């Protein structure tokens, strides 16, 4: 016990020296403050971006495979005028693959009117399976029914935001039975979809409009091809083999032999997450490395100031040795000084970083998630830097011969 108390007293001497020379202490701390603050901010933004991505990916669905008409490597809304994906493809998939198969056609920027309100939105023509494949159901009225498809019914299901855009009301139940005009054809509103947020690419799911697939193809879009097939699987472990199976099937049906380019693309959540993250993760890693670099530079500055300080305080070291400080006591005092500097720098840098994060989170749209991890990392880094860059000066101080030091 007395040994620990003694160590604490000696560490206290180090802290006292820091307090006695505040400007020098500030210079020793500056690098740590900047590095730790940067670390906290960057990691919080990185986490914010990641959360945004994961939210979008979960909006897309984690247990689905999406077949999109048109080739290309990027995940994007289907391109206009690609006619290669057909209902027969969906039927063929349905025959081979277990799961909910939902073919649909998407058309963007379709004019939709109700009374005097008009808007441009994305219209989706789908089958009743659409609801199950997307896990996306009505909160008011009825979903699409098989009968609607069979009879080419002019009915529609509205995304939640469309209710407000077209009818100027928040009350979803009040619009059931009302009419909207899609490309100047009257459709009866039979249901309103629950809120779903944003697509992985940042579009609004909730301003979409759903009509029966048959009605869409023949009456509204006037086309005989579809744009997507969404397959919901029971077991997410099946995503990869099933994707490969579908790819092979479509190759065969579309008479494509690699290396010929595909006229379709297949995605699942993993690929979409990768793309939605884009460069953000690489950038985050790079920036964290940069914060690490500033910590390193700060550490070198700290070491140099400590070395100078050892030189300036030779007499003090000699005196301490004379009144009973052993080599280890001197070593520990300077090490404690270094650790105190980085620890205090860590506290200041963390507070500063946290402040910036809170302000950015409140007043800007920068995605931001404040969590404990960057702070834990900051503590670890501060101790490491303090130890690593403090050891050399402390050793130099402890190796001074008391007689030489007192001279």
């Amino acid at each position: 016990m007395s040994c620990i108390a003694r160590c604490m007293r000696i560490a206290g001497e180090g802290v006292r020296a820091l307090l006695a020379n505040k400007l020098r202490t500030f210079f020793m701390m500056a690098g740590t403050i900047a590095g730790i603050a940067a670390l906290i901010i960057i990691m919080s933004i990185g986490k914010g971006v990641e959360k945004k991505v994961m939210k979008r990916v979960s909006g897309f669905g984690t247990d689905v495979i999406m077949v999109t008409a048109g080739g290309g490597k990027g995940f994007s809304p289907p391109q206009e005028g690609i006619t290669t994906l057909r209902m027969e493809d969906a039927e063929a998939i349905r025959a081979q693959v277990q799961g909910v198969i939902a073919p649909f056609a998407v058309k963007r920027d379709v004019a939709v009117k109700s009374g005097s309100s008009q808007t441009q939105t994305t219209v989706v023509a789908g089958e009743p399976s659409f609801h199950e494949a997307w896990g996306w159901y009505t909160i008011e009225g009825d979903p699409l029914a098989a009968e609607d498809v069979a009879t080419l019914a002019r009915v529609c299901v509205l995304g939640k935001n469309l209710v407000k855009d077209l009818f100027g009301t928040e009350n979803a139940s009040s619009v059931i039975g009302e009419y909207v005009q899609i490309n100047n054809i009257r459709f009866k509103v039979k249901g309103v979809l629950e809120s779903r947020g944003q697509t992985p690419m940042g579009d609004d799911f909730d301003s979409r409009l759903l009509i029966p697939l048959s009605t869409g193809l023949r009456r509204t879009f006037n086309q005989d091809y579809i744009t997507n097939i969404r397959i919901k699987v029971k077991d997410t472990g099946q995503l990869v083999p099933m994707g490969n199976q579908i790819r092979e099937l479509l190759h065969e049906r579309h008479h494509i032999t690699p290396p010929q380019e595909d006229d379709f693309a297949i995605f699942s959540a993993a690929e979409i997450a990768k793309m939605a993250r884009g460069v953000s993760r690489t950038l985050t890693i790079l920036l964290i490395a940069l914060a690490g670099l500033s910590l390193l530079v700060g550490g070198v500055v700290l070491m140099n100031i400590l070395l100078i300080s050892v030189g300036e305080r030779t007499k003090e070291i000699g005196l301490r040795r004379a009144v009973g400080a052993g080599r280890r006591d001197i070593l520990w005092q300077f090490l404690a000084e270094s650790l105190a500097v980085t620890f205090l720098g860590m506290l200041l840098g963390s507070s500063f970083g946290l402040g910036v994060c809170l302000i950015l989170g409140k007043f800007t749209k920068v995605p931001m998630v404040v969590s404990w991890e960057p702070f834990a990392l900051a503590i670890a880094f501060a101790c490491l830097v303090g130890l690593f860059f403090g050891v050399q000066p402390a050793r130099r101080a402890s190796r001074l011969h008391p007689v030489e030091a007192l001279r």
Partner: protein
Amino acid sequence: MIELDNITKTYTKGAVTTQVLKGISFRIEAGEYTAIMGTSGTGKSTLMNILGCLDKPTAGHYRLDGIDMVNLDDKALSQLRNRKIGFVFQQFHLLDRTTALRNVMLPLIYADRYPNDAEDLAKKALEAVGLSDRIMHRPGELSGGQQQRVAIARALITDPEIILADEPTGNLDERSGLEIMAIFKRLHRSHKTIIMVTHDQKVAEHADRIIVLKDGLIAFDRKVATPHKPENRLQELADKEGRK
């Protein structure tokens, strides 16, 4: 009790070796007041460092209360200095930007046991050297004599048996020097062992015994028949001032 037995010290610098101490032997009993004299370069500082356990002899034995310090490691020597020896230096060696009180408390930091009443002890030590009204002053705010008295209070705080003083009056005017000598006299009366290195005959005459070094050897070792009384000379100075 201090026993030196044929102590030698040799410094090697490159190809040149210099033997500073060439075989020093003496005994100092507990409670003795001894001055070590010699012109500069005669090895008195080296001897002082060895006596203070700051340095080890090249050969020979140094027993402090029967313990041969030659065999001790850094940690044990440091503890020995802390417990048994109080240093007083020519340049005072006080920590600047640090109050007299904290300067006096410094040795306690390194003690095995930190007394609960450390601050009171330090205050008492400062009182004993006549500085009870300078407790919170920093060295820069004190005169040389006052600084040296703070240093003496620091040397006394662990209640050591031995006071080692290296030219304690070297940086002081006559009056301040005499005040220091008066304190040493008092310490001597309370049975501290005092060893004082000086080149000044007048200062050395305050001690009971003078050991003179010459070329690394003891030239002579004698008792002082009637040691100077610093009080007398201080009185003289006061009278002189009174007459002005």
